[in-house]
Every structure is written in structure tokens, then in C-alpha cells.
């Protein structure tokens, strides 16, 4: 590619270059690398600790919720006397079915809206 570079200006740029060989800059960069590494370790440790504390506090709530779900999800919503009709409606006539239908409805509504 043709370049309209002026040789005299190019020589000004070349002559203006300085030689940097001071160790202070290298030391400064590497000590910043080290302090960033330390900061990152501290940040991850704090995050891990916070997560552990939150998990500690939530463990009872999570346990209770799981227990409640195991009670609710398989429960029949409407009692059907006929054995065959009960079996036929089983997939929708339960907490799980209701939850599934609700999720499907939400998903369809989301797709229609967005």
C-alpha cells in the first residue's frame, strides 16, 4: 500500500525516542501484579465465606421447602372416585401437574409478549 510518510518527520520521531532501562518501572508493574493477585485471593475468600454463611442460615429454610414440596407435589387436587378416570387425570390432577401447567402457561405468555 502506498504510504505518504514524510521521511524527515519519520526521522524526528526516531530521534525523539528515549531509552528506558530503569528497574523502577518493572518493579512497579510487577508489584501491582502481585497486589492484584492478593486482592483477588482476598475477594474470592470473602465471597466463599459469605456464601458459606448464607448457606448456613438458609439450610433450614431449604430443608423445610423441600419437605413441603414432597408433600404438596404428589397430592391429588380433586378426589375422583372412578379408578380409571383418576388414573387418566393423574398427570394434571396433582400438585406437579398444576405446577407444570402453570409453568407452561407462563412460558407461552412470555413467548406471546416478547
Amino acid at each position: 500500500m502506498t504510504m505518504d510518510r514524510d521521511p524527515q518527520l519519520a526521522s524526528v520521531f526516531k530521534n525523539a525516542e528515549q531509552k528506558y532501562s530503569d528497574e523502577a518501572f518493572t518493579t512497579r508493574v510487577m508489584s501491582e501484579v502481585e497486589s492484584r493477585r492478593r486482592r483477588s485471593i482476598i475477594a474470592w475468600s470473602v465471597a466463599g465465606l459469605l456464601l458459606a454463611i448464607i448457606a448456613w442460615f438458609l439450610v433450614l429454610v431449604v430443608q423445610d421447602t423441600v419437605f413441603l414440596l414432597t408433600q404438596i407435589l404428589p397430592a391429588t387436587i380433586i378426589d375422583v372416585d372412578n379408578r380409571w378416570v383418576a388414573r387418566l387425570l393423574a398427570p394434571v390432577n396433582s400438585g406437579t401437574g398444576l405446577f407444570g401447567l402453570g409453568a407452561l402457561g407462563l412460558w407461552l405468555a412470555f413467548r406471546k409478549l416478547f
Partner: protein
Amino acid sequence: MPLAQEQYSRSAESLLVSLARNGDRSAYTELVRRRQTWVRNLMRRFSGDVTLADDLAQITFLQGWQNIRHVQRPGRFGAWLKRIAINVWLQYLRKNDPLRQADEHIDSNAMHNDVTGIGMDLDRALATLPGDVRVCIVLSYHEGMNHREIAEHTDLPLGTVKSHVRRGTKRLQALLSAYALPPGEEKMK
């Protein structure tokens, strides 16, 4: 097993890059040592300010360390680092208006004794150029990049780069006419 300091200073750059990619900080220290002149000079031409240039050079090397494991070809470390340096400057440029701060930078340069006259004059002249023009001029004259390479690195259209280089060259020729060689001397060189 880590190498001795002496071995690092004798090692080829591609080997140092490979070592640094695996987390060897001493290898990266040697890379900073070797590349500092180039990056600091580049930032100096971009910013026109010694202190700011060193800060930006430091950011460049820090970003280099954070991303060095992504270097595909250790032999092309210089080109990879140059891309980081240019991005660091462009980001700085987007956040700040260098023309507004140009006078301030030049004043702070005057306080540094290590600044040579020609470097100072060049920085003064560069400070009068708009940000994009200055980037194109520095990449063209300092880095020896062609128009297409500049366009790729700066995301500017090729035509814009050409006009920036042409316009910047004319402006610098006028401002730095004192450094123009007498007719005929250039050919003798």
C-alpha cells in the same frame, strides 16, 4: 523448576512468553523489562505526558499479564502487546478529552529533566492534533504501520485513516519545520 534470573535475561522472547503463559512471573518481569522502552515511548507519543504515559504503559502490561494465557503464538507477542497498548490508549481517549488537557500535560512535561528537546517539541506538535488524527500519525510514524493496519487497529474507515495521516503530516511539517533537513542532506543520509 524455575530458571535463574540470568537465564531469563538470556532467553528468547517466545520462550519467556510460553513460560509466562504458564504463570511464571519472573518470565513476565523479563518481558516487561525488555518491552518497556517501546511501550512507554508509544504511550508518550500518544499522550504527550511522561507520567500519564507511564501509567498507561503500566495498565498495558497489567492487562498483558491478565490475558497472557490467551496468546496463541508466542512469536507474535509484540504485535499482541501493541494491540493492547492501542486499546488502552483508545479507551483513555474515549473517557478523556486530550485536547482540553494538552496544555496541562505539556506543562507537566516541562518539569521532567529527562525529556529531550526534540521529544518535547514533537509532543507539543502532536498535542495540537485532534485525538484520532494523533493516533493515526503516531501509529504511522512511530510504529511504521500502513494505512490498512491502522484502520484494523483503530476501527476507523480506511479513507479516514488516509486523510488523518495526510492532514496530520501537513500540520506536523509546519510545526516542526525547524527540524527539517537542508535540501540534499536527506539523500546523503
